[in-house]
């Protein structure tokens, strides 16, 4: 639905600056994710009125307020459900969902799994800091075993979720991991995720400088290894991706784990949308159709 106005306008970084500046703590990993999303949109030249950024609740979920696109700052854990509704009502829109690990893998875990299996065409970026920040430092679904937080002061005894393995099992069709400290690489993954037709999941290590003293920039930097640097790695190979997803410790892979393009998107699979986005179809039900509906009851 590109308009004349949009067609003539070249999108620059300044166009994507939000009404207010982020209130994240200085050094927060989320700054890097915000900048990378803005860069990706500029590089792809997606008109900003055709982008909807949708989040749940948490530090990182304040994201839509800091970028000049249409935005929805929804309920804790519900961003993917809301985003599915937005995409199905107007599949011409570019939908980017942003949030944290608690929002997505904890309270929103149910929607996470089902949105992946439905292959809803959107990019889901999780700013994964392995901690609850906005509530001042509690254990999250990705906190490591033994990690001490205010809610588990004697150390976490629960195994963390592995978001990449989970996404592979649930049927996501684009699965990647980025690091907020690797800007160019992250921007590239965001671009690919937006361009992928289907559900794109991007788990981003986005360190919390205030509450997580275990998973810091310094901790991640020597460990992250780009999958793209391994020429033998084939992201079309689901089994290989699953094996890679299990790596954690001295070496942690980042990059594109998996992509397949042979699965129809949810909106592409529904013939009701063949005539175009629902939102542009304001025509009432033709009289012969409504008559037939009533005739069935006679």
């Amino acid at each position, binding site marked *: *639905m590109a*308009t004349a*106005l*949009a067609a003539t306008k070249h999108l620059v970084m300044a166009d994507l600056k939000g*009404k*207010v500046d982020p*209130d994240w703590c200085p050094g927060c990993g989320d700054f890097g994710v915000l900048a990378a999303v803005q860069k990706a949109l500029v590089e792809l030249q997606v008109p*900003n*009125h*055709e982008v*909807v*950024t*949708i989040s749940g*609740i948490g530090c990182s979920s*304040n994201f*839509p*307020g800091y970028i*000049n696109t*249409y*935005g*929805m*700052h*929804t*309920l804790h854990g*519900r961003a993917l*459900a*809301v*985003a*599915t*509704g*937005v*995409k*199905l*009502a*107007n599949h*011409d*829109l570019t939908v980017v969902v942003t949030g944290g690990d608690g929002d997505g893998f904890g309270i929103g875990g*149910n*929607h996470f*799994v*089902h949105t992946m299996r439905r292959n809803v065409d959107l990019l889901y970026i999780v700013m994964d800091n392995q901690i609850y920040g906005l509530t001042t430092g509690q254990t999250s679904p990705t906190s490591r075993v033994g990690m001490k937080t205010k809610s588990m002061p004697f150390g976490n005894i629960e195994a963390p979720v592995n978001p990449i393995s989970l996404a592979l099992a649930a049927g996501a069709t684009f699965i990647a991991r980025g690091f907020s400290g690797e800007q160019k690489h992250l921007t590239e993954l965001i671009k690919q995720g937006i361009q992928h037709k289907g559900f794109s999941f991007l788990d981003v290590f986005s360190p919390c400088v205030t509450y997580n003293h275990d998973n810091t920039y310094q901790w991640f930097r020597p460990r992250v290894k780009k999958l793209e640097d391994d020429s033998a790695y084939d992201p079309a190979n689901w089994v290989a991706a699953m094996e890679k997803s299990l790596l954690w410790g001295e070496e942690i892979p980042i990059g594109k784990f998996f992509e397949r393009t042979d699965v129809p998107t949810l909106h592409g699979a*529904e*013939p*009701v*949308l063949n005539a175009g986005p*629902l*939102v*542009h*179809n*304001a025509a*009432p*039900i033709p*009289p012969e*159709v*409504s008559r*037939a*509906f*009533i005739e069935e*009851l*006679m």
Partner: protein
Amino acid sequence: MKQTFAIGIGGAAGQGVATPGDIFAKIFSRRGLHLNAYNAYQSIIRGGHTFLTIRTGPEKVTNMGDRIDLLIPLNQDAMNRHLGLLTEGAACIYNADTIKPGTAADGVQLCPLPVSKLADITRNKVAQNTLAVGAGLSMMGIGFQALEEVLAEQFKKKGEAVVAENVAIARAGYDYATSNFKPFGWPLPMTENRYAVLSGNTAMAMGGAAAGVKFYCAYPMSPSTGVLHWMAAHARKAGIMVRQVEDEIGVVNMAIGAAHAGVRAMCATSGGGFALMSEGLGMSAMMETPVVVIDCQRAGPSTGVPTKTEQGDLWQMLGAAFGDYPRVIAAPLDIGDCFKIIPEIFNLADRFQCPGIVLCDLLLSEGRLSVDPKDLDFNTVIDRGELVTSANGAPSGDGTNGAYKRYRITESGISPRAIPGVPGHIHTAATDEHDEDGVLISDEFTNPIKRRAMMEKRMRKVVGIEAAVPPPELWGPGPRDADVTLIGWGSTKGVIEEACEILSEQGISANQLQIRWLVPLHGEAILDILKDARHTIIVENNYSGQFARYLRSETSYVPSGCIRKYDGEPFMPHHIVEAVKEQLGGKTKLSVPAHEIMV
């Protein structure tokens, strides 16, 4: 009194109670007769006991009534449960091979069918049902041809041989009854009218289609699932996107997402699912994105009795989600109204950018009623309110880039709503409190002055909503100062109406105040009506008198008495009539009628 005729068919789930019911319903409606059907059933797929009541007559039939004229028990259990409730003039048709009748009242005709002699039961397992339908129609004075036509339609897909076999069995039952049983004293008449027969769920789904709903999603939950089934079956023809979602939290959020992107979105559930949706309703209110949620009430609390009716969710609706926000709550009065109310509530939700709740119940959702097809009018008024779409949203005035304020403070409280995709209107909608331009005033920029202004902006919509909804009116055979004024809400309209008629015939003048809009309530108008009333009784299907408490909280009004029922079954007219007499006689102020039918 209205002339009606009621058939009761009882048996185990899976024994084929529905098919004879459908056949009778089709024959009656095609004869130009009205009908009302209510199926008392259990949460079981095979076995148990289910009892279908179909009541018909030339005038509107608003409820299941008090009397069964023809009982068809399909097993011994159904015979044992229901025969004793038949009174003079009624008849009972049963399979003499397998069922023993008990003692019937004087004047009740027992009609045993020698099923194995009349049909080959090794070939046709539901032969007893078909024989009974044939026999019943003969006794009602309806020509066999009507049945032949319906059977031909019913079994068309199974081939001519099956049609012929069933017609032959029905014929055998018909002829056997003609020679052996006494016809009913009142042969069923015929009129020129033709009616559609539908459930409240079908009516609400069709009402949604008529309202221009483009997005419907749900999680299956009795008794609301019928809405999903109609939507799913008709989605492609109606151009509606229908999704089954992982849970009701997902349902309401998905619907709000679709609504936010600019389409009318609807979902339906029952009390338990609604509880999961309530945080989402608050989001609809805070983001000012309209959504319509249907709650088909069933007996609670918790999982409760999934297949039984109740009006027990009113306070859940009134208090759904935390904080104060404008909402609209409507309770359809009958199955025809289930259709009409959907476009009406969408127009309000769209105009006032707030959630709309339809408070239905199992009685209407799963009951069936004959409706004049003219009343299922798809050519309905659609008012989307102040919606800025790509078609009309050229940037101008305060629509210029950066200057558009999604939550602009206005006198009406309504701010023009731009949908994503429209150039020049970029904004963020948030569940956090926000300023006129959508910027959060919940974190860094908290500000008591702005918070107050935004609360007042949203709440000002309440005034407009009240003006847009008509106040309730008094109805009934009695004058304003009748002996008794019965007050009800939603689905009890029909049964209270009939109770008023019966009371008036018995010399007690009665009228009715039936509430359709729960929010806004129009308390002043209600007080004005009730100031002339001599004796007021609130009738409702719940334990604590939820409406009575609500009316009191809004108006300080206290009725003379209450009639309540919370056994899972709907009111029958005599329950109300007897309770009114009891209360007018000064015996009690609270009547809880017992349901005599064991279903």
